[in-house]
Each structure stands twice: as C-alpha cells, then as structure tokens.
C-alpha cells in the first residue's frame, strides 16, 4: 500500500450559502450559509463517509465536491486542478471523472427514457467516435457488473424495483470509469437485505476500480460497514474526522458521542432509554 502522491480531492475552508429569496424589486436577500469553512481530503481509492443529521449540509457538501454548487469562498482541488470558481463550461471536461449516485433513483432517472437510452446517452456524449458495437458491449458489461439482466435495457424506470433502480444509478455513475463518486444516501430507502446487497456491490466496485468515494449517510452503522474514514458534519461544520474505528470507538467530540449513543442497536439496552447513563452504556456495549 504505497502512500498516495497527493490526495485526489482537497477541500480547504469551503463556505457555501444558498441564495436568499428575491425581494419585490429583484434584489436578493443575503445568503443563509450552509457550509462554514469545511476542510477535508480524499485519497485515490479511498472510501470516506460523510455523516450528519438534517441541516448538517452533507448533501450540499456532496454537490460542492462535484462542482455543482458554486462556493462563496474556499478552495476545492480535484487532482490538483482548482474547480471551485469554474464556469459550467470550464468544468464540463472534468465531469466524466467525477460522478454522483442519488438517493432516489426514481427521480434521478428520466421517467420517459428507457434504461438503455439513459445508459447510452453519456457514452455517446463523451465518446462519440466509439463504434456502436463497442458501446453495446460496455453497457452489457456494466449491467453484469451490477448484477442486472440485459432485459432491463428496454424497461422504463417505473417498471423496475427500488433495488434495481438503484443499481441502474450505480451503473450509470461508473459507466464512464470515473475517479471519484459521491454516493448521496444511496441506501436510505432500501430494505435491510437490499441495502446489504447494494453496499457489498459498492464496496467491490470501489476496490476493483480503485474508485474514491464520498459516501454520504445519516447512518453511522452503514458508514462503518463500507468506509475507511468518516467525517462528522454538524450545521455546516466538521466536528470530527478520522479513521472509522478511531472515531467510532473513541470519539473525541461530544456531538459524535451523542450521535453514536443515539443509534439503537438490535440488542436491548436499558441505558438507551435513560438520558443520563449514556456514556456508561456505550462503554458497556463496546467492551
């Protein structure tokens, strides 16, 4: 395991605010800050979890990492190149190297397109000179990789199950062989068994392709299962970050401890219900 030369993604002091609403005469109210100076880095092939509750800014962070949201200040460097201030047209060539998997595949797949067209479109865009046969081969290979039958290509999104749709979302994201993928709450709506399948798939793909991943979730147990490191976000600020074991077994920040304690494990724990005795309860569980 050689030390990576430089991280794939480096973020320094990122500040993002959503634009305020318009006043009557067309001016804008001041922005409400969503991210207050976030710094992090993600190395090649590394799976980093981003955990936070609602209002933590984790989704905004995920979009900012892909240059989909313009930051108010701060720097985002992707493979050495600064992307934070770039115009849409300037960032477009980089797009094939960084992709996004959405939480709700129902809304992230064009409802009026067959799966086949949805998967073929990005290939045609980025590799127009590629022969049709080659494109077909690649799409079939990807379907096999995510364990979907080729018949899926003729279907529309609403004809597939939730787990299948999610796998199409994954297939679309890895089709262009990106270096970095942001997975935004991709298992949140799924049953435990489907979740397990999807997470295993993600882990395998990431290892096979050397894919770096920012795995956004509100569920620390899920993050522990697939990520090397974790970043804890609260109200737009990084509260703690580090290797999963370190943060989960010996959390430094009070908020992290609160977050961990709140998770109900499938083992009855009387201390979970009692407010005061949380720390002891956790120590007991981890022992």
């Amino acid at each position, binding site marked *: 395991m050689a030390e990576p030369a430089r991280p794939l993604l480096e973020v320094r002091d990122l500040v993002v605010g959503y634009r305020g609403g318009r006043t009557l005469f067309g001016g804008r109210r001041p922005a409400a800050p969503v991210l207050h100076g976030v710094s992090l880095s993600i190395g090649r092939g590394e799976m980093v979890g981003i955990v936070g509750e609602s209002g933590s800014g984790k989704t905004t962070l995920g979009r900012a990492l892909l240059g989909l949201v313009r930051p108010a200040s701060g720097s985002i460097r992707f493979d050495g190149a600064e992307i934070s201030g770039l115009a849409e047209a300037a960032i477009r060539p980089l797009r094939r190297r*960084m992709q996004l998997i*959405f939480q709700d595949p129902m809304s*992230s797949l*064009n409802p009026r397109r067959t799966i086949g067209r949805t998967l073929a*479109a990005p290939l045609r865009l980025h590799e127009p000179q590629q022969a049709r046969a080659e494109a077909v081969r690649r799409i079939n290979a990807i379907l096999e990789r995510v364990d979907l039958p080729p018949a899926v290509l003729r279907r529309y999104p609403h004809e597939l199950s939730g787990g299948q749709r999610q796998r199409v979302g994954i297939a679309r994201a890895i089709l262009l062989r990106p270096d970095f993928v942001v997975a935004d709450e991709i298992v949140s709506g799924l049953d435990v068994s489907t979740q397990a399948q999807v997470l295993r798939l993600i882990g395998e793909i990431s290892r096979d392709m050397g894919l770096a991943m920012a795995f956004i979730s509100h569920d620390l147990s899920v993050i522990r299962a697939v990520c090397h490191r974790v970043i804890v976000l609260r109200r737009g600020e990084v509260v703690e970050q580090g290797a999963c074991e370190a943060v989960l077994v010996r959390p430094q920040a009070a908020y992290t401890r609160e977050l961990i304690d709140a998770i109900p494990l499938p083992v009855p724990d009387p201390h979970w219900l009692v407010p005061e005795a949380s720390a002891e309860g956790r120590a007991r569980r981890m022992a």
Partner: protein
Amino acid sequence: MPAMLRDWRLAAGGGVLLGLIVLAVFAPWIAPHDPLDQDLMAATLPPAGFAGADPAHWLGTDDLGRDVLSRLIYGARVALMVAVPAAAAAALVGTLLGLVAGYFGGWVDVIVSRLVEIWMAFPAVLLAILIVAILGSGVVSVIIAIAIIDWTRFARVIRADTMAQSEADYVTAARTLGFGRWTILLSEILPNVLPGLLALIALEMGIAIVVEAILSFVGLSVSSDAATWGGMIASGRQIIYQAWWVFAAPLAAVFISVLALNQLGDGLRRALDPIMRQ
C-alpha cells in the same frame, strides 16, 4: 395503446376531433350543397322531422335558402383552419419562452414573467378585435390574433412545469454527466413537459374555435358570406323566432367541439402522466 382508448374522455374527444378533421378536409365531397348557394324559394325550411321539411336539407335552410348542414360542414373547415395553426403558433411561442424562463431563470425569467403579466393585463377579446381590425379580416389575421393573445397561457404553464422538472434529480444527473444546458433543456426536460403541453394544445384549440366564432359573430373573421359558425350564429340570431335551427345548429357545433377538445385535453393529461406517477 388499448389502455388509452379505455379512457372515455380520450376516445370521445379524439373521436370528435377526428370527425371534425374529416368533415373539414372532405367538405366538398361530404356537404350535400354548395354553402353559398342561395335559393329563395326554399328559404327557412325546418330541419328533418319537423312539418314542412325538405329531405334535401337535413338541417333545414336559412333565410337566404342556404343549406344549414352544408354551411355547418364548411364552418368546421374554417374552425379547424383557424384552431390548429393558431394553437400551434401560440404553443410554439409560449413554450419556447416558458422553457427558457423556467430553466435558465435569472434575468431571462424576470423579463419573460413581466412580459407575460403585462400582456395578460390586456382584455383578450378586445385585443383580438383590435388586431383583426388592423390587419384586415381573413383567416390569417384571425390566426395571428389568437396566437398573439394566447401564447401567455402556454408560457405560464410550461414555465411552471419546467421549473418543477429542473429541480428533479435526473436533470442534476445529466449535468454531472457533462451535458450542455441546451441539450438538457431540449432532450431531458422537454419530453417530460410534453404531456402537459399536448393537453394544453387541445384546450387551446377549443378556445381558438370560440374566439373565431366571436370574431365572425362581429363580422371580423373571414369574408361575411362565407360559412362560419360565428357568422351563422349572428345571422341566425336575427331570425331566431322564425327559424331557430339556423341559430341552434352552429351553437351546438361550437359547444360540442369545445367540449370534446376539453375532454381530449383532460384525457391526454391523465393518460400521459400516470407513466410518471407509478
């Protein structure tokens, strides 16, 4: 396909529209008489089934002896000749502006929205009359008048629809995949906005028929003795006590057409949207 026909709205509305198209296109072969043919000896004959009816004139004749049925059929021609291009033109202008305003937002949206609001402040029918008075009567003027007035209807609906679709994840997905903004607008968003658009076009055709009828009622549509439904209503109104059918027939024609087109629009909306609802 079969499922769509099961919706009676679609079937009935589509059927009537198809019937109108057939009547309009094949008028010279279907109409039993020349609509302009006057025969004062056979004036104000009642429709079939009433005392004194002439089997040659199923819906009777007007005060100049012209066959009501034939005039009705040729009137359908005028109605469609106006309704289809007018709805299409209004749709084209309105949709384009709506798409652009809804997707790009910013100052584009501000300009388009203000334009729509100001435009809609003018009383529609008066504006139509004004435009036709300026441009002179004739089918083309009527089409232009309707399109000029009603594009705002499309702009508002399409803008709202576009804004809603722009928020959807699949648009963000297209962005992350590297598609350009115009590509996304036309190949991702437009197809999803199409169902609403088609429904609105059907509705607009109904509106166009009514506007044309109003314009020909006041004599501003095509030339005054050509057969138009509005013109028939106008002249029929004057002899309503002697020959009520001259007034009633075109009125019924307008009513049925508009009703059918509304149902068609409604049915289209329901039929095309459930794909997404599941």
